[in-house]
């Protein structure tokens, strides 16, 4: 019987110590809300769109990064498709890549990121991924992704 009591009291100790809180460490990620553009929106080469995102953190935001790249470097395009692309489309089309980063003034808990982004005239058409990355002061990171399509000028616009 004695053993059972020892066992139970040990469990109680474990439970108690497991619940003790840590001294002010921040493991909460910042949050990202992408306002514009919508997911799966369509654009044409030469268009300009506004990227607007609301970044919030429980403690303090630190920095952001925006990365736009063509879906061809995802894991879907095989060698064959790439060659076909290269063959069918003239060489003036360039895979468009956009990269921008910035830091956020210290002490900020909420930051509205606004970027006017111009799609180059020679941007290769297709699906693009837009990713927003945010860190807070403690080093917690969050990211959000949307997809948009860049289509030919003479293409029908289907909304």
């Amino acid at each position, binding site marked *: 019987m004695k053993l059972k009591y020892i066992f139970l009291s040990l469990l109680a100790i474990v439970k108690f110590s497991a619940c003790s809180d840590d001294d002010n460490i921040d493991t909460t990620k910042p949050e990202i809300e992408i306002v514009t553009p919508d997911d799966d929106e369509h654009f044409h080469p030469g268009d300009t769109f506004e990227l607007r995102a609301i970044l919030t953190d429980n403690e303090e935001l630190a920095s952001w990064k925006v990365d736009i790249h063509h879906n061809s470097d995802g894991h*879907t395009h095989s060698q064959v498709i790439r060659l076909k692309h290269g063959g069918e489309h003239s060489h003036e089309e360039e895979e468009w890549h956009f990269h921008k980063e910035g830091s956020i003034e210290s002490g900020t808990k909420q930051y509205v990121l606004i970027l006017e982004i111009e799609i180059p005239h020679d941007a290769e058409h297709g699906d693009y991924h837009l990713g927003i990355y945010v860190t807070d002061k403690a080093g*917690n990171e969050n990211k959000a992704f949307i997809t948009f399509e860049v289509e030919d000028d003479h293409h029908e616009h289907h909304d």
Partner: protein
Amino acid sequence: MRHIFILMLCLLFTLAKGQTSYHIAGLVLDENNRPMPGCHVKTESGFTVTDANGRFIFNQIPASSTSINVTFIGFQPFDTTLIVSGHHHLRIKLSPEDVKLNEVAINGTRLNTAPNLTRQTISGNQLSQQINGTLVKTLDRQAGFNTMDIGASASKPVIRGMGFNRVVVVNNGVKQEGQQWGADHGLEIDPFLSERVEIIRGAASIEHGSDAIGGVLEISSNRVPPSGFSGSWQLLGKSVNETAGSSLLLQQNNGSYFFKGRISVLDYGDYRVPTDNILYLTRRVPIENRRLKNSAGKEQDLFLQGGLVGENWRSSVSTSRVWQKSGFFPGAHGIPDNNRVKDDGNYRNIELPYQSVEHWKATSNTMIQTPHSVITADIGYQLNLRQEWSQFHTHFGNLTPPAVDPDLELEFKLQTLSANAKWNFRLTNQHTLTAGTQWQWQHNRTGGYGFLLPNYDRYTTGIYVRHDFALNRNWHFNAGMRYDIANVETEAFYDPILYNYMLARGVNEETSAFYAQRAMEVSRSFDNISWLAGFRYHSASFWSLSMNFGKSFRVPTASELSANGVHHGSFRHEAGNQHLNPEQSLFADAQLTITADKRKLLISPYIYLFSNYIFLSPTAEWSHLPHTGQIYRYMESKALLGGMEISYNEHLSSHWSIEINGEWIYNRQKPDEHVAAYPLPFSPPANLFTEISYALNPAKKEQSVQLMVNSKAVANQNRISRNEERTAGYILLGARMFIPVTIGKLPASINIQGHNLLNTKYYNHMSFYRKLEIPEPGRNIQVMLNITF
């Protein structure tokens, strides 16, 4: 270091010189020349029990005649009278009274080679009864042992909250390689093969050197088979991924030589998960028909062993090949894309991306036994060939696919040569000295269009001594020391394609060059002294206590030293640090064992103080590489890790028994001006395993029908490091049934198991799929038929 060694030798010599009379040293063996620990040995001048290697010794025997009497339950006693006119060295062979009882008795007094360590032995019988996917997963119920899982078919061991290179896996005396790679693949060991597994919880640096910080998993399939021809055949079926598996063992023992061969085959489909979709990078990814696409796989294993058994020695040569091919969930590679996770109408196909793993091993194990000494020598060669196949893709638009094997993304070819030798010398009943050396050479070459690990060469050499001292029946002390030298050389890897790609994107030359240097040339030499001191106290009544203090270490890995780039499994930019030092930790642990008639309670608290825990720390720098966010750098930090394991067993009545295993771990970095007191990554939450067993016919012991109901309760894990996810707790229910039968005239058993009976949706905090929010496998019912002949 040297002084202590000399001191030890002096001590031994004085002890040896002090003899004015003679000593009688003996070795007790069974009919198969296997040493018998735990035999009672009586002479006129005293009484002793044989040690783990079947040895006993009597000093101070005056020159006259003395009788010797050796007894062991189930064996015919041995009696003789010696005329003592000098030192005597005896080999005593006991004959069993009944062959069946002999097997049971041997299992009952399992060797305990390092009595002070917290050790747990699981026999081949238990393993095959509890088999659950992989060998490592089967052990998950043990206190202090956790698994990092990758779906239903691969797991890595975690002991005391430490995994990867902080745990050593030893297979047939040689350190198994393959742990150093990412969390997305498991241990390459045939789940049917192991004849005995021992889990050492706590640092075991003296005998195992670098990496043995959290503990050691010792797997052996080196047992000499019973006389004559025998074998077994297993058939396994699982519902969660429609596994069909089978394993055949054939063995022959002709007294002086033996052979063993095993072939195992496993084939499984996509596994079931209790969810309709997962959340990956803020996207909902559907899991069609609740089956994780492309998680199917197959495994084919072969094992051959031949051995010779002499009067005083045993030697065997073993070769094995483990081959696995298993798919990766395509939704977990790259940016989420729903097209890739559409049901393809086939649950058993393995499409790209997948991994193929081949592990070849050849080992030679030799043991020489005399009344004073046990000498072991192990030599091993291993080849780890690991390939990841994924349709050719590039993160840098200008890369062209290779002409040969265009879809081979990563290939690692690691060759390892190991050699160990150990000499255990029992001088008196009180003093035993062990000296040993370990040597290892590694040569890693890589291939594929991706890049992850650099080419590297690594040498390690270690020497150690240990002294065991039994003061009396109650007090035992031990102390040991080890010196290691390690040399790591990594090859530089410069990626001109990446350089041009960065330049084309408008990045300046200096930064482009930094990114293009995917691995730095690093040449480092390390040396390290580790030590251990401990005691064990056996009270005359119902309890015993052991405590250990020591220092353990591990040599930094090639990627920790030199990596620079995206780790394609984690999608993080990981940067190595060529100035890292060997990770070192002081530790203390204790084990209190209380045995009261039908109850046994074990409590093992432990604490580690790391002077430089090496881990990937998130930084405030953004990586310029596509698909990546912040850069993670390998850093060193002071850290504290502590915890406790509790196990409790009770035979409630002749029919009922209960087993409870609990574990709790706490860890954190030591805060300084740079870093707050963050918990360490991959920490197992507190957990409790309970199993209640019912034996239908207790008189038949292991041959009775048995029913078991078990549960695993896991607490919330809210103590997370940065960029980890909090993981909710869960309770799983399971059940087992063991039914001995006879098929024809052959003894057999049917073993039915249910895991996750309520089909609970839960996450394993340490699993590779955790951050993708892919839950662990759902309900699984499995049946195993085991026929022995």
